[in-house]
């Protein structure tokens, strides 16, 4: 009877609507009114069923819901907030959202090649391959022919749109490569096995696609894969291509502009008349925490230039933007660099949003996969997300000044990893791994180079199969809802650019 009574009471309150809400004791609480504002913002959303002239796909590599949570708090705390309440630029009510299942055809734990491929072709792919159908086999060049998929870049290029790629990783790395390459091995960045004639290496495919008019702009790292081993590169390093080809020279001969540092980036002609190839580092671009302004542009600065360049095409454009080093910070078990690159990604999203019109531009913000990142408890409000866990305070909102201790009597960080170089088990004699946790101070835990403690020993922290989120605004963004397969992202893009 009691249960029935409660249900009936609740139904009565709901049925009588907003007027009755004012009579609730919590009606004037800030959380209550904020909640009302939140649903009003969702009610006020306008569904856009127009045709998307432009599509911008922003991917923070390795930025699953856990990693994104860390970045949200870090960004907020950098602004003086507690952090938990912070709203990243893509977490506002005007973005629709969904959860995304990221597994590959043959892998529970995904890698970045087939995940990016799924977003760029509409089908799930096999582990470590890019843009080849499910019958292709990893590392087997003989399975390339007949399995090549058509990319979104090729589709929209056929609609006279321009295509751009930006990445803070190497342009030949998995996520950017998925815009233009088809390969049986993601590691064939500047060479293919002897006798393999069914495909070229990934760098060569980029220049071929630029020559073919599919790719108009490419900015990122990976310079060494575009020049032979005997070539001295712009910053004093050497090329890496065994075949000796100088693809940078080939691109400029074909009419492309080339930039390699902030100064030459600033001098690019952005009127859209000449393709752009920008290679800012021999390998990956620097982590945002280590980037020098006079050496490399930021992700947001590259985003701004790319949109200015691509907007010259009246038929529109497709631009994929990757924050590639969010992933690398996690692999290193170095949460601080992950979060700082996450903030740089958020700034790039804000820049893209600011420079485009929701009426004709579909902006999609997502990740390719999550990591083995996890969060300890029970930390008080405002505990530094990059530091040690403080206890919950009995009064007020903010955490107490008491560090929580584990059963070993030592404090612990909020962020931890399930595996990786921060493993507390260290290699001993033979195969004997033993260890205990280090005693940490808050200063040590918040150091830029600090590696979070982990459980399973591994030279590199690993991806995980946990869902990522997708956020979107603009034409057909409302199609993102519920829990979707990763390849559905392509279908929303493809539907949006073709809608009548």
């Amino acid at each position: 009877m009691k249960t029935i009574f409660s249900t009936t009471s609740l139904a009565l309150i709901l049925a009588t609507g907003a007027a009755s809400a004012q009579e609730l004791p919590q009606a004037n609480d800030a959380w209550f009114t904020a909640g009302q504002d939140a649903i009003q913002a969702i009610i006020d959303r306008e569904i856009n069923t127009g045709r998307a002239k432009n599509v911008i796909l922003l991917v923070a590599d390795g930025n699953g819901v856990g990693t994104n949570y860390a970045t949200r708090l870090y960004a907020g705390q950098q602004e003086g907030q507690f952090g938990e309440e912070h709203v990243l630029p893509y977490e506002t009510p005007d973005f629709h959202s969904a959860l995304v299942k990221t597994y590959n055809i043959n892998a529970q734990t995904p890698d970045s090649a087939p995940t990016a491929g799924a977003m760029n072709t509409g089908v799930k792919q096999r582990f470590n391959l890019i843009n080849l159908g499910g019958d292709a086999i990893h590392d087997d060049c003989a399975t390339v022919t007949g399995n090549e998929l058509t990319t979104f870049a090729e589709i929209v290029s056929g609609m006279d749109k321009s295509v751009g790629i930006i990445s803070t990783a190497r342009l030949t790395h998995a996520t950017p490569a998925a815009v233009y390459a088809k390969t049986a091995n993601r590691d064939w960045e500047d060479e293919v096995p002897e006798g393999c004639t069914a495909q070229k290496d990934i760098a060569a495919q980029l220049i071929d696609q630029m020559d073919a008019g599919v790719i108009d702009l490419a900015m990122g790292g990976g310079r060494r894969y575009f020049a032979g081993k005997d070539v001295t590169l712009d910053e004093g390093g050497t090329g890496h291509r065994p075949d000796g080809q100088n693809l940078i020279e080939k691109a400029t001969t074909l009419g492309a502009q080339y930039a390699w540092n902030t100064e030459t980036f600033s001098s690019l002609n952005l009127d859209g008349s000449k393709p752009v190839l920008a290679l800012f580092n021999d390998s990956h671009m620097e982590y945002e925490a280590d980037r020098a302004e006079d050496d490399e542009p930021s992700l947001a600065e590259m985003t701004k230039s790319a949109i200015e360049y691509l907007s010259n095409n009246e038929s529109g454009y497709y631009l994929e933007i990757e924050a590639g080093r969010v992933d690398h910070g996690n692999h290193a078990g170095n949460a601080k660099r992950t979060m700082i690159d996450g903030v740089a990604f958020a700034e790039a999203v804000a820049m893209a949003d600011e420079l485009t019109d929701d009426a004709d531009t579909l902006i999609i913000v997502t990740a390719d996969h999550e990591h083995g990142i996890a969060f300890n408890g029970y930390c008080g409000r405002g505990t530094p997300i990059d530091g040690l866990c403080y206890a919950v305070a009995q009064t007020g909102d903010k955490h107490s000044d008491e560090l929580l201790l584990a059963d070993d009597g030592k404090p612990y960080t909020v962020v931890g990893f399930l595996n990786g170089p921060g493993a507390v088990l260290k290699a001993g004699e033979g195969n004997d791994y033993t260890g205990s946790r280090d005693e940490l101070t808050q200063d040590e835990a918040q150091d830029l180079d600090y590696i979070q403690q982990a459980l399973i020993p591994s030279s590199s922290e690993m991806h995980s199969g946990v869902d990522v989120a997708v956020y979107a605004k603009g034409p057909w963004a409302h199609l993102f809802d519920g829990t979707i397969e990763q390849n559905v992202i392509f279908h929303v893009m493809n539907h949006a650019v073709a809608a009548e």
Partner: protein
Amino acid sequence: MLTRRTFLASALAAPCLAAPAAADLLKVRDLYQVKGRGLSDLAQQSVGQRLEIEGFMAPPLKAESRFFVLTKMPMAVCPFCETEAEWPNDIIAVYTKRIVDVTPFNVKITTSGVLEVGAYTDPDTGFVSLLRLVDATYG
């Protein structure tokens, strides 16, 4: 109310992660400018001096050697990120007094040695270094 513009402005105004002043126990990054493009003033001023630097021993390039590479973070090798080992710019070559007794790559060590600067190619491994600690001990 946080707007996009204030978000950007606030994020850009975030405090820089400046290298600390010289201290008894140094970090690897203290000897380099941002992103390892050049040596720091501290490094330039400390040539010939014995320094104590904390870091990690990268997996040795050669067995039974008196040489190892000191890194600021454990050398994580991601098979799905890299086609080959990626050395960061800011590393220190260490030439030891005794044959190196290998320490696991993720155990923090303190290395004491006399600072040398200038390009040098290790005759055994071909490893090129710009910054070295010689006559070094570690633990």
